[in-house]
């Protein structure tokens, strides 16, 4: 489980170090590399109302995907197509990932479960989620007496 926004849990010096490393990568325009065994890699886009989570899942049938939003955790699960080639054939390269995957992502806000929309196009999954209405930031006008 990966917590891109680690603001809870016990104090962990390694996490601090990892945060620092990611901070450095960001400074140099490098992506925050996922740790090994974490699949799929995600990008998270945010604005005041919610977030967009994207993941590259080429060849995954949307029917085989499971997306669950509970509290502020989003879970993506699914199955990558197994390589299907005729028997007696010779493999020259076998690089495409296969197997089952499941990943949980903790967002910095609660997800309104009714707002979650997922779309898959050309092997790119895009999940749009909103904060609950009462938790959206509000602009407060300062009144002059």
């Amino acid at each position, binding site marked *: 489980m990966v917590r891109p926004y680690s603001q809870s849990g016990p104090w962990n010096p390694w996490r601090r170090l990892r945060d620092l490393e990611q901070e450095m990568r960001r400074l140099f325009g490098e992506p925050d590399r996922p740790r090994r065994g974490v699949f799929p890699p995600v990008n*998270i886009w945010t604005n005041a109302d919610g977030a967009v989570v994207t993941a590259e899942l080429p060849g995954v049938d949307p029917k085989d995907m499971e997306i669950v939003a509970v509290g502020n955790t989003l879970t993506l699960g699914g199955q990558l197509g197994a390589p299907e080639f005729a028997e007696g054939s010779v493999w020259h390269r076998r690089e495409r990932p296969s197997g089952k995957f499941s990943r949980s992502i903790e967002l910095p806000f609660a997800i309104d479960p009714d707002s979650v929309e997922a779309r898959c196009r050309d092997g790119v999954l895009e999940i749009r989620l909103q904060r609950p209405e009462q938790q959206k930031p509000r602009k407060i006008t300062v009144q002059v007496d």
Partner: protein
Amino acid sequence: MTDQTPHVEKREKDVPEGVEHLHEGKLFIPPADIVETDSAVLVKADMPGAGAEQVDVTLEQDVLTIHARVGRHDPEGYGLAYSEYETGDYQRVFSLSAEIDADHIDAKISAGVLTLTLPKAKPAQKQIRVQAH
């Protein structure tokens, strides 16, 4: 997490020394499965974000090149808060050992996976009738 958990890390294509990059953005090497049967060479390559209009497949002599122009697709009205992967174009060049029937190459792309079927060229056959005197 089990050992079966898939793992990918996009590999960026190195530009050979002396070659200059004339396009913007990143270029990635798509991971591929390649299988050879008696009759054909089958290639599957992961190019997420690419549709049929973005992909080019060329065969020149025995050099097969696959290329896709994907670029960046940033959701409008949002700022990138956390990033584990980058997007860009794809390119990969294969040198084929078998003789390919270039006129009958089949290329399909579905859900970001390019599937190529390259039928092997049949050796030219000519039957010579032996006549009896």
